[in-house]
């Protein structure tokens, strides 16, 4: 951790802000975040008797049962929009594979030993694709659970599969969600604010997303 000398090349402009997320991206993120949190709270209530009280704080069991699938659809819509906007940025490339090998450095906060990354690092890409495919499975199994009698007795294996898939995949998303919230709201300073006001400092961009930073600099020079 550098405490003494200011190490950034543009010491004077180190606190200059660069835009990272558009207003639409941020609004969509928080719609999705609220929707996921609601599904998480109500879903955990249905998951364990020891957490059933969670349903009571959001209006009671029947209310939670009614809204959980609708809010799930809202989350799905939010995620599909994210996919439309970000899937190009989320493609895994050779740089990511090199980064993945060096991931222990990232975990141990030795970011200077990592290869430079673009707008999103490999971890963020894993998170995105993890949530994306999970939500497709949650959507399919959720539709079966939503209208329990949609499928006849002869097709009951669909219900048997759905209860397992919905719970298992939800657990995977909870793992991803915990890591996501921890890293963006607690671990990496500057991340949380960027999803509120949309900006990061140049130093932040240079530290964590060097390739992306270089692109921004190149673009701004070209525009000058």
């Amino acid at each position, binding site marked *: *951790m550098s405490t003494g000398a200011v190490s950034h090349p543009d010491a004077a402009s*180190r606190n200059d802000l660069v835009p990272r997320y558009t207003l639409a991206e941020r609004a969509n993120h928080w719609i999705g975040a609220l929707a996921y949190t609601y599904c998480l709270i109500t879903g955990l209530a249905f998951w364990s008797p020891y957490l059933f009280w969670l349903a009571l704080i959001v209006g009671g069991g029947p209310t939670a049962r009614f809204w959980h699938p609708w809010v799930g659809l809202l989350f799905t819509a939010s995620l599909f929009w994210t996919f439309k906007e970000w899937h190009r940025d989320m493609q895994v490339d050779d740089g990511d594979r090199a980064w993945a090998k060096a991931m222990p450095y990232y975990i141990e906060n030795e970011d200077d030993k990592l290869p430079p990354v673009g707008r999103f690092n490999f971890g963020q890409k894993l998170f995105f694709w993890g949530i994306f495919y999970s939500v497709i499975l949650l959507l399919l199994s959720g539709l079966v659970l939503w209208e329990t009698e949609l499928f006849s*007795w002869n097709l009951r294996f669909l219900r*048997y599969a759905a209860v397992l898939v919905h719970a*298992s995949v939800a*657990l995977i998303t909870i*793992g991803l969600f915990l890591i996501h919230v*921890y890293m963006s709201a*607690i671990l990496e300073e500057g991340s949380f604010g960027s999803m509120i006001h949309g900006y990061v400092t140049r130093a932040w961009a240079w530290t964590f997303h060097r390739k992306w*930073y270089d692109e921004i600099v190149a673009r701004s020079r070209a525009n000058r």
Partner: protein
Amino acid sequence: MSQASTEIIRISGHAGTVPGAGLNREFQVCKLVDTTTCIGCKACEVACLEWNGYTFSETTFDNSYQTMPETAWNYWNLIKFNEHERDDGTMMLLMRKDQCMHCEDPGCLAACPADAAIVQYANGIVDFQEANCIGCGYCITGCPFNIPKFSPTAHKVFKCTLCNDRVSQGLEPACIKTCPTGCLHFGTKLEMKELAETRAQQLRTQSGFPDAGVYDPPGVSGTHVIYVLHDAKNPELYGGLPKDPHIPWSVKLWKGPLKWLGDLAMVGGIVGLAWHYMRFGPKKEEQIKPDDGRRP
């Protein structure tokens, strides 16, 4: 138990044995349906509707005597009619009164996430408490007999109560009360099991049904509704009565190991992240030292 205060165990200064000592009270109730004496009159269907306060509604005609394809949220008792051709070419009309089986090991109860929406009484009756039902329909997934049905108007699930309201007042269920042929019996599980075995024995030795037997499936630890069948080896013939019913393994997996694993993983995940923060601290920008040759 209030009954226990009338039972005497020891008597002071009393010569001889204690009257009533060793008396065994059987609290487990059971309904016995003897399919071999059912005439398909559907009086039980009507009695069920009447007692439980439902009215008859529109149904589907299926080229059969059967009132509707399967039980409904407001139609808990349905005789299933099945034409069966025997090996000698003769035809049999198999009639089985279908309703909740009141499993000793109820899949609906295992699957239900709502606090006290399903209860199992000491006498074996499994009853839905609709006031606590959240309408998720997991009981429908858990049931191996296709019994709980969702009411689209109430958004809750309903099924046969074994007339718990009547039984708790010392009455027999409405279907039993009305049965004109005596093919329905109600009593303790021991008595009904005995009666059923006697009848099955009679069918095997005197009526030419060598495969007659009693249906009390062990996969759900027995049921509080048991059948006498002409052909106990093929219960599926009787409108799809499952041969070896049990709680679906996916429901068991979901409510058993997956739950423990998931709880452990969630708590472990939170603890792990807290540990990470304490061990490695926050990620700050500006970590690159000067002259490391990587500056832009």
